[in-house]
């Protein structure tokens, strides 16, 4: 691996860039859909531009250790600003481009940014609105001058002028910048990435060149990512994922980063570029699948039947073929036919024609969605990552991807589960701490370098990490068995019949569940069964529906049972709520997250019934109608008991 050795000499991103300018000189480094075509820049051009930028930035006073903020959509020029700043030993601080002014102000102020580089008028206006309150900011540089002609604030600079002046300086005296680049070392701070925390102010994670480079190289090697890859840079530049996938890994491997024309054209640009290496949160994969299904609805009968048939074939053997596992000859032939008629054209129109690996992370992906992509030959894999780890912690192997794990630890990553069930890791990618937040740093990072992820999980017997819930949400049954409500609820909600599920068990002898059925799905099913119903409440109370849901719950139980750690938390009793959980009643947040405490209060009677021997209970509930009137709903809610197979003795219990 001589190449690796030579690259290994480069211990900072600017040095790697200089290396690429020689090694991959005329290969495309960045592309951007602009003015109708994919404008391209080679590594050499990029390096020259970065140098010019760096000289320009230096000339206006940016120096080692300074913070420079970057706000905008994914644009090659903004990535180059990062590299230019890093060349000088300054630290880029990207800010989410859609942040409100207040949030932007917080980050600018907290990071003590001296300069800001933005994309266009929209961002300039946002910055101008807070400029008075960040006196440290000396310059604001913009790239797209449109609409800014008459802005006369003295601190505004254009990107073009910056590069222009820098280029002259670099030509007359390149040694200055060479020296700056040479001074940089791996342990220097490379970037501050502000995590959008769910609670409180966001925290700035400090990552060094070593953190990023080692992690990126490990990922490139173990995932076989080389210079011939194409990635679509469409997720926010301020997000660690984009930073590692479309910046550090790209520079480490020398592959091409493609920036879409605008956020609105991402799907189209994805189709055009056909990336080989792709990341998307589960939500996007789900949206694409929904679109596929909707569009196929409009197809002619014959095409629809063919699609259905071949999708069934794919479900049967597609994933196995992808993983090179043995498959019957007939299926192989059918799959080959499907490849011509359905899978390959489908991958083509979705933009997945060249994909070698696609990643997803962030939340649990529905098994149907996961299987769909793998079955049509898209190698989707789940990973587990965090900003504080320079992203990569675990990754599923190509031939062993399952919807319910996040894979094996990456190279150089150690994982352990704390006594409280929290996943902890240690790796070369572990960050240096939160900027100006010693308290949070100490809380998250142990003295011997272990980082507390805040997620509860465990290692399955095959070594795969399973994340089950946020650690603070995990509870225990009275016998000490681990109880991860969201994990079970998610499993339930993957069934189309179940719209919402609330699982109870913390401090209780067993797990029980409150179920909301999906009126569309179950309603359809009922119609096909010839069951007539008058309302949600009516349908929800039907024994046939209880049977239906019970079957789903038993499936989940069997899943749980397979896992010794969770076998004890199988659902024993459940009921179907007589009304839909409603944000208007305060039971859900506006983003449809369950508010456990409110539910515990308003359904107290039902909950206590779940932990009694009652087989049904009469309820009255206040409901708010759509017109705002309040009413009283009376119903008799049945409670089902589910017989469990013998629960094996858990391997793991809290002592």
């Amino acid at each position, binding site marked *: 691996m001589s190449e690796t050795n030579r690259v290994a000499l480069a211990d900072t991103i600017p040095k790697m860039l200089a290396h690429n300018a020689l090694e991959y000189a005329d290969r*495309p480094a960045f*592309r951007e859909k602009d003015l*109708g*075509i*994919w*404008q*391209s820049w080679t590594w050499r051009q990029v390096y020259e531009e970065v140098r010019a930028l760096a000289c320009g930035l230096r000339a206006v006073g940016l120096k080692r250790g300074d913070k420079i903020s970057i706000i905008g959509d994914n644009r090659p020029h903004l990535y180059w600003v990062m590299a230019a700043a890093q060349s000088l030993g300054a630290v880029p601080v990207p800010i989410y481009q859609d942040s409100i002014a207040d949030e932007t102000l917080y980050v600018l102020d907290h990071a003590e940014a001296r300069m800001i580089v933005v994309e266009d008028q929209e961002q300039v206006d946002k910055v101008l609105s807070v400029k008075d309150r960040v006196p440290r900011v000396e310059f604001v540089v913009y790239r797209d001058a449109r609409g800014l002609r008459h802005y006369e604030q003295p601190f505004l600079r254009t990107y073009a002028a910056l590069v222009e002046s820098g280029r002259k300086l670099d030509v007359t005296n390149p040694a200055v910048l060479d020296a700056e680049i040479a001074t940089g070392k791996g342990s220097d701070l490379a970037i501050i990435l502000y995590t959008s925390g769910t609670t409180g102010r966001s925290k700035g994670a400090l990552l060094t060149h070593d953190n990023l480079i080692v992690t990126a190289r490990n990922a490139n090697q173990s995932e076989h990512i080389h210079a011939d890859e*194409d990635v679509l840079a469409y997720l926010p530049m301020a997000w660690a994922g984009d930073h590692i996938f479309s910046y550090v890994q790209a520079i480490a491997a020398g592959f091409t980063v493609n920036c879409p024309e605008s956020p609105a054209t991402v799907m189209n640009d994805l*189709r*055009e*570029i*056909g990336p080989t290496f792709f990341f998307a949160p589960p939500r996007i994969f789900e949206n694409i699948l929904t679109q*596929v299904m909707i*569009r*196929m609805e*409009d*197809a*002619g009968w014959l*095409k629809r039947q*063919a*699609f259905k048939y071949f999708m069934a074939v794919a479900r049967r053997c597609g994933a196995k073929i992808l993983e090179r596992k043995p498959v019957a000859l007939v299926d192989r032939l059918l799959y080959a036919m499907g490849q*011509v*008629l*359905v899978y*390959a*054209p*489908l*991958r*083509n*129109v*979705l*933009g*997945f*024609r*060249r994909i070698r690996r696609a990643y997803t992370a962030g939340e649990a992906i529905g098994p149907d969605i996961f299987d769909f992509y793998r079955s049509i030959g898209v190698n989707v894999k789940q990973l587990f990552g965090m900003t504080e780890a320079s992203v990569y912690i675990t990754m599923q192997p190509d031939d062993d991807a399952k919807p319910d794990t996040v894979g094996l630890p990456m190279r150089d990553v150690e994982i352990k589960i704390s006594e409280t069930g929290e996943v902890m890791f240690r790796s070369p990618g572990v960050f240096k701490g939160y900027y100006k937040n010693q308290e949070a740093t100490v809380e998250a990072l142990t003295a011997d370098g272990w980082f507390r992820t805040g997620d509860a999980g465990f290692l399955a017997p095959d070594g795969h990490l399973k994340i089950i819930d946020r650690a603070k949400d995990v509870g225990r049954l009275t016998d000490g068995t681990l109880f991860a409500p969201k994990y079970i609820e998610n499993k339930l909600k993957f069934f189309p019949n179940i719209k919402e599920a609330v699982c109870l068990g913390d401090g209780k002898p067993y797990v029980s569940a409150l179920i909301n059925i999906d009126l569309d799905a179950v309603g359809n099913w009922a119609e096909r069964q010839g069951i007539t119903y008058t309302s949600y409440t009516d349908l929800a109370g039907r024994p046939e529906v209880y049977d239906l849901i019970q079957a789903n719950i038993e499936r989940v139980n069997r899943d749980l049972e397979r896992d010794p750690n969770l076998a004890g938390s199988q659902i024993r009793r459940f009921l179907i709520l007589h009304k839909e959980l409603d944000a208007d009643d305060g039971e859900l947040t506006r983003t449809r997250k369950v508010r456990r405490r409110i539910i515990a209060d308003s359904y107290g009677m039902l909950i206590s019934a779940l932990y009694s021997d009652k087989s049904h209970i009469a309820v009255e509930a206040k409901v708010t109608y759509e017109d705002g009137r309040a009413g009283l709903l009376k119903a008799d809610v049945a409670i089902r008991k589910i017989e469990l197979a013998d629960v094996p003795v858990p391997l793991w219990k809290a002592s």
Partner: protein
Amino acid sequence: MFYRESGHFRTTYRADQAIFPIVQDRWSVAAIAVVAVVAVPWIANEYWLQAILIPTVIFALAAIGLNILTGYAGQLSLGTGGFMAVGAYATYKLTTFLPEINILVMILVSGFFAAAVGILFGIPSLRIKGFYLAVATLAAQFFLVWIFNRVPWFYNYTSNGMITAPPRTLFGVALTGPHASAEVRYLVCLAFLIVFAYLAKNLVRSATGRSWMAIRDMDVAAEIIGIRPLRTKLLAFAISSYYCGVAGALYMFMYLQSVETLAFDVNVSFLVLFMIIIGGLGSIMGSIIGAAFIVLMPILLTNVPRLLSVQIPVELAKHGEQMIFGGLIIFFLIVEPLGLTRLWQIAKEKLRLWPFPH
């Protein structure tokens, strides 16, 4: 279904403006060209070449010519037969007058005569459009045929008033005359078609073509942009007539080999017009498809019943053919005014989006 466009993105305007920007299209067109040039002369027999392929290729060239004028520049012409006659008679006069100059050169030169005549009859297009212009071009048609018929100088005073292709060669290979093989004549015509189709495509995808289409779609706006209507229309007449002239020369020298003016009568004009309506107005590819369709249809009409052992009187077949032509024109104008090309494009669009319906 067979398209795999994802990942074939354009990084330059040159690639984006290519005639066939999609890789698969490039390959299929190249494949078709290779088959037409290499395989067809090998496989096809004399009948196929003489009865189908040669006329198709020649008419395709004439149809491209008319399509430039009618489909792109929007100037309806019924004088195609007349302009073709100019090419044929000019070539005949030139090659009998200067036999030592190669016939192919003469064919190319004769196009200029046709172009000049085209410009002359195109002058009214400044003042008139639509069917008025059609009548004016009809005047050209009748006048030209009449003059070639009545002035014996044009047919070198032969007793029967016919002109016959004299034997001419290129590097010792007989191109015209009784010894010219069908394969050679086919290849010569095909070479003309390929080159001229390519040139025409270039014309219509650049500023010249845009000014034609601008005049066609909205002449008032075109004029205010700075497009000179007369110049633009006359250029279309000239180039269109050049194409028709060359096609006429080939029609006479490479196909019929011995003709009287009847071969260029108004029916030829109609036939070529039908080719572009059915093939597709404003499409080079459509001109070729339309020519093939119109040449093949009568052959199918006579041969299919024979294959099915059904006897159809010659008269019936002839009139039936006429009715079908007429009916098809109306059918296409109603159902698909942009012709077979449009159907082809729709099919292609479907294949590109496969498995999605739209």
